[in-house]
């Protein structure tokens, strides 16, 4: 398998190492510099110490439990806000009249930054999962609405005519024609929303909610443990990168080039 890839794209793989020079070089330089001139700091630590702290936090389970807390809040927010956004988006996509009437309200509410709702959620729910799920849910609602609206709009009009000709009910048309045809783009929407959900979940935890990875970051900083703080930071980055890369691989495998159009940025 690996040999086949090597043979297939020699120029590409021969140069692939260049991608790693900058990040690994920077880490190596930091390690060397800090060993040569050790500094007492609350903000920097030896890269090797950071790796050690990461492994230890993974081994004693503290990082895993924080990760699950963040993931659970993300998932809850996606289920609540994403599903609602999907429903409204599909509705808008099916009826131009509904979309035109709802457009102004959406445009007025959409620019509201989700983090501004943290105090509102704090007041209503207190600390905990419900606060975070509410904020994450709001943050993915509008992107999901816009993207699924666009996805349904992109369904070829002829397919809809077929549905009408076969006298399918509205529900059957949505289930049998619209959703399958829009699925690749809806998956892209899901991938983008998962990215947003992670960022907002961590942000909520840093700004107020005492749980999850964001809080782990903040408490490591406050207990003056820079190696742990940097380890959690690296873990958050790894998680975001891994989620995106995994979903991107699934997207390519399931839909190939079908999903490539439209939702680039």
């Amino acid at each position, binding site marked *: 398998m690996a040999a086949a890839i090597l043979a297939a794209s020699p120029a590409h793989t021969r140069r692939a190492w260049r991608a790693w020079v900058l990040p690994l070089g920077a880490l190596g330089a930091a390690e060397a510099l800090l060993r040569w001139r050790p500094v007492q700091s609350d903000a920097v630590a030896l890269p090797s110490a950071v790796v050690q702290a990461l492994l230890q936090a993974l081994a004693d389970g503290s990082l895993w439990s924080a990760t699950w807390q963040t993931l659970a809040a993300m998932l809850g927010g996606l289920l609540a806000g994403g599903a609602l956004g999907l429903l409204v988006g599909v509705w808008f996509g099916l009826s131009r009249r509904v979309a035109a009437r709802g457009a102004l309200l959406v445009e007025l509410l959409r620019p509201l930054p989700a983090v501004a709702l943290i105090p509102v959620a704090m007041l209503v729910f207190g600390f905990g999962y419900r606060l975070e799920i509410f904020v994450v849910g709001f943050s993915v609602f509008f992107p999901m609405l816009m993207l699924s609206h666009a996805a349904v709009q992109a369904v070829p009009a002829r397919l809809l005519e077929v549905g009408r000709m076969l006298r399918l009910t509205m529900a059957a048309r949505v289930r049998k024609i619209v959703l399958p045809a829009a699925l690749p783009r809806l998956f892209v929407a899901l991938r983008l929303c998962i990215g947003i959900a992670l960022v907002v979940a961590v942000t909520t935890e840093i700004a107020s909610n005492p749980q999850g990875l964001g809080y782990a970051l903040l408490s490591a900083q406050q207990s003056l443990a820079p190696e742990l703080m940097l380890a959690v930071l690296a873990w958050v980055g790894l998680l*975001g990168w891994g989620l995106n890369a995994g979903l991107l691989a699934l997207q390519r495998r399931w839909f190939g080039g079908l999903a490539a159009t439209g939702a680039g940025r």
Partner: protein
Amino acid sequence: MKPRFGEALAAVGVVLAFVLLWGAVAHFEWVSAVFLPGPLATAEALRDGLRQGELLPLLLQTVERMVYGWLLASIAGVLLGALIGTSAALRAWVQPTLELVRPLPASALMPLAIALMGLSQSMVLCVIAFGAVWPVLLATVHGFAAVEPRLFEVGRVLRLSRAAFIWKVGLPNALPDVLGGMRLSLTVALILAIVGEMLASQSGLGTAIVQAARSFRSADLFAGVALLGGVGLASNALLALLEGRLLRWQRP
């Protein structure tokens, strides 16, 4: 496609219905007034806050922070993006690292920034700039990398220097991408300004709404949230307007 009058009226009607529903929920106390003030109470808090002059300075501080951070990010993003985007060699070395760092939530860097710089004004500004730089930077790189290859040849034939090429050929061609990135950056900058204020207790609307929530002044809280929504709406609309003007020459 010109918007018909009736359609526009219907859209306004939907907004009014939403406000009425909000008013009904608050008036009949389906949700306790401690949590949800009515639209009138919110409007009153907004009016009083603006008239008595407490809200306006807070608003300006937040907007100032957002704009400065965004300008820093835009300048750095366009300059670096132009450099990286015009050089295929540099792209091969640097772009993978950029893609690696990009998904990192900028707010996650706030603890690190606090450890480095303390709970200060400049810490918040640095985090805003760092977080908001990515959309501009990557869009600019993409915009410059997608410049028609024949234009590069034209530049070489005319013996344009790198800077002249970037200014005269590259930037106009990359402008749609750059402006799109800047619009995204502005959204990020507003979010980070609010979070930064909350965390570092810098005075501004972000801190004000947290304090309002802590002391159960829900009308003030909603007034602040509405104002932040207004900032988002206005800044987005302004940039869209600017985009339309700057890109007018590109449309046939």
